[in-house]
């Protein structure tokens, strides 16, 4: 379970995150929705321990991220906004490297890697070097290495951004499978479509503040707008141009 409360982060006088609070439940996919620059990535970066909040708290399974960052990272699998790979390592070696960094045994890594390669449909590229991977192949490697330790909680920054239909579909299937296993999944997106097909819960952020938190149906009811995209625009308070 992921819980943030009263989170504030200021960059050079700008309040990028301004009192954000929400809870992402286990066995559910929670979508963090907002325009570019709304504060989604900053919130997630605080959660995975690479930014320090100026005030407020962030907990992962009850562990305070600010006080025990390594313990919180142990409980979490993260796909960051940056998708950098090592061009001279193969897909399998990327997954193995992260498994070793997390202290898994060789057998555990091999077993888990086999499962991930299959689940993400990437056996064909498993032993190819990352140099020359397509955007979709890169994203799959990033997702696979984030999942190598079978984390209880998942934080994914725009996981399907720029992917083709087939890749998007295999990522979605995997996420739904993990939800069924009872994992807590928090992902961000700026595409309403993405959120509405995948998420049980939606948190809409604009200008560093939470504007809405609830199911997509609740969003329709609250705004009285049937089209979710329109509802999102009206809630985030930005005029369409």
């Amino acid at each position, binding site marked *: 379970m992921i819980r943030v409360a009263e989170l504030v982060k200021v960059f050079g006088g700008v309040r990028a995150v301004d009192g954000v609070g929400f809870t992402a439940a286990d066995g559910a996919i929670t979508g963090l929705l907002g325009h570019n620059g709304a504060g989604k990535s900053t919130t997630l*970066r605080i959660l*995975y*321990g*690479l*930014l*320090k909040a100026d005030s407020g708290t962030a907990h992962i399974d009850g562990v305070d991220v600010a006080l025990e*960052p*390594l*313990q919180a*990272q*142990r409980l*979490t699998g*993260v*796909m*960051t*906004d*940056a*998708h*950098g*790979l*090592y*061009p*001279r*390592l193969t897909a399998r*070696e990327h997954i193995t*490297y*992260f498994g*070793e*960094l*997390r*202290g898994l045994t060789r057998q555990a890594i091999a077993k888990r890697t086999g499962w991930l390669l299959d689940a993400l449909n990437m056996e064909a590229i498993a032993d190819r070097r990352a140099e020359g991977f397509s955007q979709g192949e890169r994203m799959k490697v*990033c997702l696979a*290495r*984030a999942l190598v330790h079978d984390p209880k909680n998942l934080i994914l920054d725009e996981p399907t951004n720029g992917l083709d239909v087939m890749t998007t579909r295999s990522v979605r299937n995997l996420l739904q499978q993990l939800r069924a296993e009872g994992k807590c999944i928090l992902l961000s997106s700026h595409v309403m479509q993405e959120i509405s097909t995948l998420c049980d819960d939606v948190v809409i952020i604009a200008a560093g503040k939470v504007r809405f938190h609830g199911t997509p149906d609740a969003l329709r009811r609250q705004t009285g707008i049937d089209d979710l995209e329109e509802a999102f625009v009206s809630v985030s308070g930005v005029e369409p141009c």
Partner: protein
Amino acid sequence: MPILAVWCKELRDAVRDRRSVMSLCIFPVIGPLMIFFMFNQIIDSVDQAQDITLPVIGAAAAPDLIDYLRQNGVAIETVEPVADGAFSSAQDEYVHGAIAERRWNFALVIPPDFGEHIAKGSAVNLELQYDSSRQREAAKVARVENLLQAWGSETAVLRLLARGINPALVRPATVARIDVASEQARAQTILGMVSMFVLMAAFVSGVGIAVDATAGERERKSLEPLLVNPVPRLCLIVGKWLAASVFSMAGLALVLVLNLTALHHVPLEQLGISFIMGSRELAGILLATLPMAFFATALQLLIGLFARSFKDAQVYIGLLALLPMLPFYYNLMNDTGREPWMNLVPLLGQNMLLTDVVSGRAPAMTDFLLAGLCLMAWAALFIVAAAQQLKRESLLYS
């Protein structure tokens, strides 16, 4: 063990990187090539000075002088004077032309009235024409000139004796040059160059990993995903550091072996340099230089983390490789000798130890320890600073 994981990954990555491997393999070859080139130059010019063919114009006028030159091992190529005779402008042009066309490198011109001058006891002008830009011929020209001077002195002595005058009267003092430098000390300058190469190797060989593991990680955006793993930053840096150190040490050892092999194959005895390199000296050199690998790579990692981009890092770190030249030049300027504080200055201490070892003085064990520990202390400081830099938010998000 995360340090081991990082270490393995960085080494595997580097071994597959053509640039890293190339920089490890190319640099060590430069030193031996320079040694071969330099020594062959020196030895060649010494050799050739023994083997001179001197074109002489107007030889017929001075049979005594020609005999004297021949007795001293100079082969004479007699050239008939141009019609107008020696010291005419046509004669000059002919000689200049021959030198310019490289048929000759130098020539001796004897005037036709040489015999008359000698008989009268008056001074005679000989001309030795040469091209001073031909460095390789300098030794030959100097030898011919010396022989001509010696013949002049001998003739003078004979004239004085014939007139019943003690030749010592006109030569109140003679200078004898006695070189007291030991053969080992003479070898020092050359071996000093070798130690400079060895120290540079420590900086050059690990560069690939050091840049790739810092500025490279940032530029290809793989640093953020790396840092979400629950591994203390110090462990990450130490893993990268030890991997870069492996390359650095390998380069260092390679340079050492290749340079020493080259020195063994150069005929040093011909230059009056004796060069003894036993296992004791070899161990001493390794002991003095291996800590350098850890120092150099630690400094490179720290700088790599401060650089804004890959290119930035390469420029800064490339300049670092010039650092080992500083103690080399300092030693050229400084002749006050070795002082204890020098052990504590990185590079200078190592340079001192190396020069001591190669010139046959065994430095005290405490000197090795002091210099090595000092380097490692600096390295540790750089590593801690690098770990600190890795914790800064602005490193990832600026």
